[in-house]
């Protein structure tokens, strides 16, 4: 059967296999380095965390299997419920950045001199680190001299030290978070508005639609993709909230501004002791909550992908 060997491969025998299978092998070779990193640092640790959550572990000594022990303890932990409730408040209020971003985008979607500069300055808060944003708002809320406490004193005769007040602290932090998030949603909507079909708008105007009606019936449906992305980043962002809580209050006062992401960090890596297993269990809960949203998003994106 020596005739079956093609002339090419008899010249360069090593390239024969490669030539024939290039199309099948090439994608895997291209994927290998990125996938390797991703598997080591993202995929495997997810499963390791789930595994660790069934153990009692200080990060150094033996891991002691305790089954659902950490989870059972979590259900008895008051801080867990405070964190859960605060995460819910974050989630709901953070969504306000979507209409706020839309309003800002509509406000800025004009062509006057210098509008480009205005747009980028409005976007500014998003570019700045949340640590800096947190420090700015801490200063803004500071008792005695903070602009906000001055304002409340002037309005009500009584100072409100937002970050020291269990009733207001979470809302105070969320406002700080809404600042950059609104800027982000605004940019998404500005891009969306840029790509609106002008003929449809004109046609609707001919038919007498204007103002809110035009916005609701003609513009918003066309902004669907922008709204979807804004939803994804806002929901994920709200559940991930860590930096602001850490910088502004460290979960305090008395754990009243606690959220799951910070609670987990505090349990696993702070002076409260290195309770890695317990921390991992909190992380798993947060992960499961997130997975609900992530799967919803993925299903929708998958559908788009199939239609494309």
């Amino acid at each position, binding site marked *: 059967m020596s005739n079956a060997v093609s002339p090419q491969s008899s010249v360069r025998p090593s390239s024969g296999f490669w030539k024939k299978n290039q199309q099948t092998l090439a*994608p895997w070779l291209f*994927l290998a*380095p990125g*996938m390797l*990193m*991703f598997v080591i*640092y*993202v*995929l495997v*640790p997810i499963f*390791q*965390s789930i595994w660790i959550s069934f153990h009692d572990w200080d*990060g150094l000594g033996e891991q002691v299997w305790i089954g659902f022990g950490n989870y059972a303890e979590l259900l008895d932990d008051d801080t867990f419920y405070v964190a859960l409730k605060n995460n819910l408040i974050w989630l709901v209020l953070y969504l306000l950045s979507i209409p706020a971003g839309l309003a800002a985008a*509509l*406000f800025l*979607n*004009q*062509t*006057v001199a210098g509008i480009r500069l205005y747009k*980028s300055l*409005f*976007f500014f808060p998003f*570019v*700045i*680190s949340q*640590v*800096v944003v947190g*420090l*700015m708002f801490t*200063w*803004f809320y500071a008792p005695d*001299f903070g*602009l906000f406490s*001055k304002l409340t004193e002037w309005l009500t005769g009584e100072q409100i030290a937002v970050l020291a007040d269990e009733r207001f602290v979470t809302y105070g932090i969320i406002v700080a978070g809404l600042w950059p998030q609104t800027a982000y949603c605004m*940019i*998404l909507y500005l*891009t*969306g508005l840029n*790509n*609106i079909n*002008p003929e449809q708008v004109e046609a609707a105007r001919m038919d007498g639609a204007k103002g809110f009606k035009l916005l609701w019936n003609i513009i918003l449906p066309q902004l669907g*993709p*922008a709204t*979807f992305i804004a939803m994804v980043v806002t929901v994920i962002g709200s559940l*991930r909230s*860590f930096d602001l809580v*850490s*910088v502004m209050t460290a979960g305090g006062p008395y754990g009243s501004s606690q959220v799951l*992401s910070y609670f*987990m*960090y505090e349990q*696993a890596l702070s002076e409260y002791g290195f309770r890695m297993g317990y*921390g991992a269990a*909190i*992380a798993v809960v947060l*992960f499961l909550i*997130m997975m609900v949203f992530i799967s919803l*998003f*993925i299903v929708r994106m*998958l559908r788009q992908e199939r239609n494309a």
Partner: protein
Amino acid sequence: MFPTPIEKASRFVQVGYKILLPVALFLWLLPLIGVAITSVRPAGDLAAGNYFGIPSAFAGVENYTAVFRDSPIGWYILNSFKVTIPTVIGAVALSCLTGFALAVYKFKSNLVLFFLFVAGNFIPFQILMVPVRDMTLRAGLYDTTMGLVLFHVAFQTGFCTLFMRNFIKGLPFALIESARVEGVSEWRIFRHIVLPLMRPAIAALSVLVFTFVWNDYFWATVLVQGQHAMPVTAGLYSLNGQWVAAWHLVSAGSIVAALPPVAMFFLMQRHFIAGLTLGATKG
């Protein structure tokens, strides 16, 4: 265009709009303006209770010099660059390859892999914290900028792959097809045909990843402890503890820490926004 172009509105509305613009911007940036003014305020003003009035003198030079002289912030900034620049190079390079593979080839697990990358980039960091910290410790990379770089490269590859893959999908596939017919090898197709076309995507991703990684705080606190490897976000927070009530220094430090991504944004604005809004217009 929506809303109605302002030129078509009455004179009164037009003037109103032009007045409202700077007022709205001022209110919107009030926290930032406050911090900027405080950063040039003499320390005496704060002691005298002049927090929001006009600074009694311009102390910008003193404050900013003091920040660099009396704190390791210069060191922190250097660390941030040591983390951010290799991460940008690594994540963008890896995702050019993965994005190309997922966009150009048809194979069974293509979509599954793609969505794995997409999902990976939405997950909460906390689920990775304990194992990644442990692994970094065991590899002897805890408290080094390298430890941060490796993690960030791996994590950012998720988002970057999504981005690159969608970008390459939009390129004319006929180019690749005809090269294949000519017998050009897959690597040369990537290197000489696709990569040159990816320049705008590479630019957009570089600015985005730079900003994300520069602004990261969580991993900087989890994987680094000492001053010698600490990036500026975590460093600034620890300085805040030392500078109790020295708001003029905290403000100056904040401005210094925020400057590189802000400069990046203004230099590469179009790319930055194109990157963020990917997928916001069609789909």
